């Protein structure tokens, strides 16, 4: 279902049908967008449910100034950032390392089916500052272009390029130290 069809259905009052169309169109993409920011499939599922709840509550406020795709992604990205911050705070209060916890989580995760190199890559991504992590995930894993990422993060394409470059250099350095 296209964005126009979804919005059209919603404005006709067929809200649940519109929302189901939205879930069908964006559910899988949003899941993968969120997956790299949490430790387990269950956490990703919970976060995705929260994102869709926020989308449902915010739909009456959608004015069409941004594309539906951008708007939905922005909500998901904000929730991902909130999750990162809560995780960081939790580890700070318990004096534990978020990276160590992430690595341990990967090793025990039944839904992780990558090899050692991918594990190192995800660990290196986990160590990036928030914005660089977001930009890297969206560019490298989700193949978004700089303009799309800039629209979602409400920044300039130039800023996105700089963030991605910094992230890329850091990850490359970290991975080359491992080998």
């Amino acid at each position: 279902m296209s964005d126009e069809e979804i919005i059209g259905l919603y404005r006709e009052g067929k809200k649940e049908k519109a929302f189901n169309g939205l879930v069908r169109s964006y559910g899988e993409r949003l899941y993968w967008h969120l997956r790299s920011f949490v430790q387990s499939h269950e956490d990703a599922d919970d976060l995705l449910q929260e994102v869709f709840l926020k989308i449902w509550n915010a739909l009456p406020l959608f004015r069409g100034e941004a594309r539906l795709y951008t708007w939905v992604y922005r909500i998901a990205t904000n929730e991902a950032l909130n999750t990162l911050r809560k995780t960081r705070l939790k580890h700070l209060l318990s004096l534990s390392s978020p990276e160590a916890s992430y690595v341990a989580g990967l090793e025990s995760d039944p839904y992780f089916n990558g090899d050692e190199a991918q594990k190192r890559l995800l660990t290196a991504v986990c160590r990036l500052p928030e914005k660089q992590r977001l930009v890297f995930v969206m560019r490298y894993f989700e193949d978004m272009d700089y303009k799309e990422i800039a629209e979602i993060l409400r920044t300039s394409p130039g800023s996105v390029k700089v963030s991605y470059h910094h992230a890329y250099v850091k990850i490359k350095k970290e991975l080359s130290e491992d080998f």
Partner: protein
Amino acid sequence: MKKMPYIVPEGYFDRLEDRVRPWERPARRPVKKAVPYIAAAAVAAVIATGISLMPSRQQESYYPDIEAVYMEYLYSDLIPATDPELLFYDEGYTDSLNEVSDAYTVGDDELVDYLIESGATIEEARQIFLTDTLEY
């Protein structure tokens, strides 16, 4: 999109639409989540109240014993009939009151503007300009 090194349970995305039904979700009760914050706020309020109720030595030396002063002047004719509260203030305070009132006097131009805006009649305006004191 590069494949992330994760898998999902079989049929997860197919069933997503059936599972994500926010219109069926009961309204969140914020009470449980807010309890720790409410508790912290209550503790802070108790501490703040305790501190505010503690007698301050500085306060006692600055303010006179109001009861004693009042009793002293109770049957005297020194209490100003028009403004009994003035009894409790020193000359400096009353001087400063006059300074403040001078700063806030209304000029004739301002008065005219006000009368025009308020829609006062000509008779009412004459009354104000011709009398020196306001009558209660």
